[in-house]
């Protein structure tokens, strides 16, 4: 298994003046195999962008080691940089150029620029080539950024909230395009940092969740979905349920008389049947969407745990 990204023991904190510093990333470990499409999720300010900037050597590790495409990120040479594409949350371009001039300008830096891919992308995203870059709407700037980040067919594509300025149509085009890139070249690795979880859920195969500087999830989306569930618990005879279910797999519980809602972590069918027998209840288990799993991986979880203790 070749790794596209290898982060070992990475720590980073931003100084906050006199009040000291807050750790943004704390002894982070992350390995991303080549060919994966990773969704990097987490609350605002959790360090998603900081992590991405470490990957391109834009920020240097205060502790630990970051390697991308087999090269230490702080020392990326131009050949390796030419294999990376990045779309920033807010892109800045040269306003006075036309879209076409800007594309040509950037393309001139890459010997392997794929004009055919560029033209297909410009068509799909409905970008106007003779529009001035300075007059583009935020959504269209985002589209231009995407063309500029992918025209050289990068082996590693890093996207920081790429869907932010796009309307639903543009978002679905973007996701469609990412999948197409993967289908054409299996070895392309894509990391998409976003909190539009419905978009992420649609395309990624792996989820990485950052919270309080650490990873609270680093696993395939499938296994994340299979791990958490919401149970509707009923006492068949209408008898009141216990005040609290003591099982450690119950992450959160709301109990009202003979009914309860439980959020569970990692329970198999057998264990669920045992639970039903033990408490004399019937359970309806439902899968959770990424939107519903998100609070379990982030701050909400902390407050529930505090509540319970």
């Amino acid at each position: 298994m070749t790794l596209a990204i290898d982060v070992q023991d990475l720590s980073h904190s931003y100084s906050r003046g006199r009040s000291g510093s807050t750790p943004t990333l704390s002894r982070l470990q992350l390995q991303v195999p080549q060919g994966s499409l990773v969704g990097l999720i987490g609350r605002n300010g959790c360090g998603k962008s900081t992590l991405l900037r470490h990957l391109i050597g834009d920020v240097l590790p205060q502790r630990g080691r970051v390697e991308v495409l087999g090269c230490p990120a702080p020392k990326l040479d131009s050949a390796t940089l030419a294999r990376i594409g990045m779309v920033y949350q807010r892109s800045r371009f040269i306003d006075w150029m036309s879209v076409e001039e800007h594309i040509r300008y950037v393309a001139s830096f890459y010997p392997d620029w794929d004009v055919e891919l560029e033209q297909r992308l410009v068509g799909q995203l409905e970008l106007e080539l003779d529009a001035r870059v300075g007059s583009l709407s935020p959504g269209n700037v985002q589209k231009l950024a995407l063309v500029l980040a992918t025209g050289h067919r990068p082996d590693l594509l890093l996207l920081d909230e790429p869907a932010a300025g796009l309307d639903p149509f543009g978002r679905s085009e973007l996701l469609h395009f990412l999948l197409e890139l993967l289908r054409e070249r299996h070895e392309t690795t894509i990391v998409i940092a976003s909190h539009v979880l419905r978009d992420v859920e649609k395309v990624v195969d792996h989820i990485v969740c950052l919270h309080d500087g650490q990873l609270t999830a680093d696993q395939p989306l499938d296994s994340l979905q299979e791990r958490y569930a919401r149970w509707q618990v009923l006492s068949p005879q209408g008898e009141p349920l216990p005040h609290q279910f003591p099982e450690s797999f119950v992450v959160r519980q709301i109990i009202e008389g003979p009914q309860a809602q439980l959020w569970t972590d990692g329970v198999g069918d057998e264990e669920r049947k045992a639970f039903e027998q033990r408490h004399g209840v019937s359970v309806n288990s439902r899968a959770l969407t990424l939107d519903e799993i998100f609070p379990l991986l982030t701050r909400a979880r902390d407050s529930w745990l505090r509540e319970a203790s």
Partner: protein
Amino acid sequence: MLLVVDVHSGVPVYRQIMDQIKVHIASGLLSTGAELPSTRNLSSDLGVNPMTVSKAYSLLERDGVLERRPGRPLVVREQPEAQVEARRLEPLREALHPCATLAHQLGVPAEEAVTLYREELQNTAIPPSPKSPSAKNSARSRDSEEAS
């Protein structure tokens, strides 16, 4: 082959693909030897990650449902009769589980719930499709009757 996946249902997409292919086989829509679309085509049709389709296919292959032959499309393997029958009931049993718990919740006695289910079966009855295995048998027997 019509597959419909809901990427926002929380049920892993590879599971949805596996379950639907199994249902199609159980209902006779996909018969032994039927070819499946390539990973690339199916993932493009469904708008999902190719890895997801290839995971579903590999697991179906592991379960003995599909067969991979070098350089050719995946095909449906011949299924033991007893297994086909069991697989036919599996999705139905799963779908009935929430109905059963709801009946308990509402305090509806078992007999009454069964009557309701029977009524519902009658209300939704459609002429048997020629594609389902049992209908195939009956169609065959009708043919032979006509011929005689």
